[in-house]
């Protein structure tokens, strides 16, 4: 088994030179950042073709992250759903417990090669913050993580993890005090400290080249899944299912399959208290194109163009925008986007925990919930692959509170 072969960055569809996926993407940032983005584009373009850099990245993915992650047949979940075979891509088994580390290992290494001694990151659920603090500790970089005040409360354990790792967690109290505001604050830090600071964006959004770069670093998930399908089942899956907040785990899984037309792709957004309630975070299902955080994509705004506060039980999906490549996949019809409520996600959280002994992150629980629905509509000889993007240990407090259980 040659896992390292999967880990080399390959891409099948690219945006134009300035990062446009059709009408989406681009670089919508203040002038001060334009040069930094050019530098980043150049550095990424150079190092991704450098043998030593790529060998080091592959080695980190294997020996530090613990790749490849297994492709696991969820037998009892499949029996309950009553249809297609459900397979789980176990990104929850990665070091730090989610797919996020695939990206931070790559970007922190890039920062190191670019000679940047300080990294900053934004975080919602805390997974990206933890993954950034982790790699920064290992490379001896100083690390500041911006996190909304609301998220700091609902993800207290991850906040403490980041502090243990030596990162400074800065509370963001502006706007809705969640992920979008953390992103604004990280951008402000970057503009102010541009000479020595590298900004590790945690999702496939932001200005070019972030959507491409974060996708490429996560595409190891899809490449492995593709190879594991062939090895274990001698066929490609009929459908892929992944949750979408900003969309990095979904993009990483989808991307290597984009040119395999028979493989259907489903992105699952957070319907919160229901799409009709207005309290959700489903920008692709219920939003419209606009410009936020450096790129043009679908987003949730009001009639005056102000970005709306979103709601999801899962902090990692609680974001009013989405990566531009998802917007493009939606418009082109290559991927389909659906939404799952808080309630459905919580039910799936319990189902998977009780049936398979796997405690999924609330983000990933959205994908599990839709995967079960979809599997029921498919035939028994078909296969559905769910990206189990993260583990749920960080969410036990939230689940307990929702169910009025004091720990």
């Amino acid at each position: 088994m040659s896992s390292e072969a999967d880990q080399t960055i390959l891409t099948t569809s690219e945006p134009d030179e300035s990062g446009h996926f059709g009408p989406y993407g681009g670089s919508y940032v203040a002038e001060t950042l334009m040069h930094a983005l050019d530098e980043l584009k150049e550095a990424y373009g150079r190092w991704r073709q450098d043998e030593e850099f790529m060998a080091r990245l592959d080695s980190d993915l294997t020996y530090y992250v613990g790749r490849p992650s297994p492709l696991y047949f969820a037998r009892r979940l499949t029996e309950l759903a009553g249809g297609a075979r459900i397979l789980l891509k176990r990104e929850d088994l990665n070091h730090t417990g989610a797919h996020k580390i695939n990206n931070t290992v790559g970007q922190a290494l890039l920062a190191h090669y670019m000679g940047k001694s300080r990294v900053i990151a934004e975080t919602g659920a805390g997974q990206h913050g933890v993954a950034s603090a982790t790699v920064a500790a290992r490379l001896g970089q100083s690390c500041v993580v911006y996190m909304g005040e609301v998220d700091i409360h609902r993800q207290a354990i991850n906040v403490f993890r980041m502090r243990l790792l030596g990162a400074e967690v800065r509370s963001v109290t502006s706007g809705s005090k969640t992920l979008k505001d953390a992103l604004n604050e990280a951008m402000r830090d970057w503009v102010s400290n541009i000479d020595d600071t590298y900004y590790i964006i945690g999702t496939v959004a932001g200005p070019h080249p972030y959507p491409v770069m974060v996708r490429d670093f996560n595409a190891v998930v899809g490449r492995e899944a593709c190879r594991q399908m062939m090895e274990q089942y001698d066929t490609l899956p009929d459908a892929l299912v992944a949750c979408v907040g900003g969309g990095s785990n979904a993009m990483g899984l989808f991307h290597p399959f984009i040119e395999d037309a028979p493989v259907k792709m489903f992105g699952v957004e957070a319907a919160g208290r229901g799409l009709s309630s207005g309290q959700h975070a489903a920008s692709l299902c219920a939003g419209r194109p606009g410009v936020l955080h450096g790129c043009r994509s679908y987003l949730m705004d009001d009639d005056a163009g102000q970005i709306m506060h979103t709601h999801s039980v899962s902090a990692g999906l609680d974001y009013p925008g989405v990566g531009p490549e998802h917007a493009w996949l939606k418009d082109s019809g290559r991927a389909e986007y659906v939404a799952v409520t808080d309630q459905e996600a919580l039910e799936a959280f319990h189902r998977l925990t009780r049936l398979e002994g796997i405690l999924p992150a609330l983000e990933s629980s959205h994908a599990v919930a839709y995967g079960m629905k979809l599997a029921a509509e498919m035939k028994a000889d078909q296969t559905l692959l769910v990206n189990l993007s993260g583990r749920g240990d960080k969410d036990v407090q939230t689940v307990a509170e929702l169910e009025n259980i004091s720990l």
Partner: protein
Amino acid sequence: MSNRLDTRFEALSRSGRKALVPFITMGDPDPEWMVDILHALVKSGSDVLELGVPFSDPAADGPVIQMASERAISRGVTLRSVVDAVATFRCRDPDTPVVLMGYLNPIERYGYAAFARDAARAGVDGILTVDCPPEEMKALRDCLDEQGIYPIFLVAPTTTSARLRFIAGQARGYLYYVSFKGITGANSLDRASLAGPLGEIRSCSDLPLAVGFGIKTAEDAAAVADLADAVVIGSALVEQVRNAVSCDDACERVMGFLAPIRHAMDNRD
């Protein structure tokens, strides 16, 4: 079609005067006072008005303008109401150039063509969209050009020479040099660092040159006026206005704050 920005900067240049360009966040602290505050700015000796259109996610702004934007939005201020305020202002002031400064998404939602048409009718002369570099502006640019509205662009300390030439080729009205690497209102002005970049910009463009970010005092303003054609004062002014208890108080604060700045700019040795 003549643009008030050209007319104003030509007149200033003939009289050897430097432009005072105040920035305020529209609608803070009270949307009812917007138009009166604009007239007070002009009465204080302002030459060009930069009007901040509040946006929910002002990623290039420091806390002063962030908070002012949040307050204005919570009181119902929108791009549309800012355009309306300019139209009302124009009834009594046909000459002072007005530039709207803000972020792209409110213009996206308004619709480029409708916005350019309404803004031109209201008497807007320039648009500065902080998060829209010239590369991404083509469609909006076409609509603005059609209505004779100028796109105003920023130049930063990080802007390379090649890019500076590109921006200079795209810009109309004036070029706005951001005095430091940071967000609005953050640092203090580092006067010594200005001469080099301003000289380079002058060598690429004949447009009037404004400097902003970090100018807080009359002394700063006078020092910048020695080097540039226009002095932009934002956060420090917004900070003055936000504590006003009445419309009259707001106007008095504006005049009290700007008078010594105007005086210092006009009485340099």
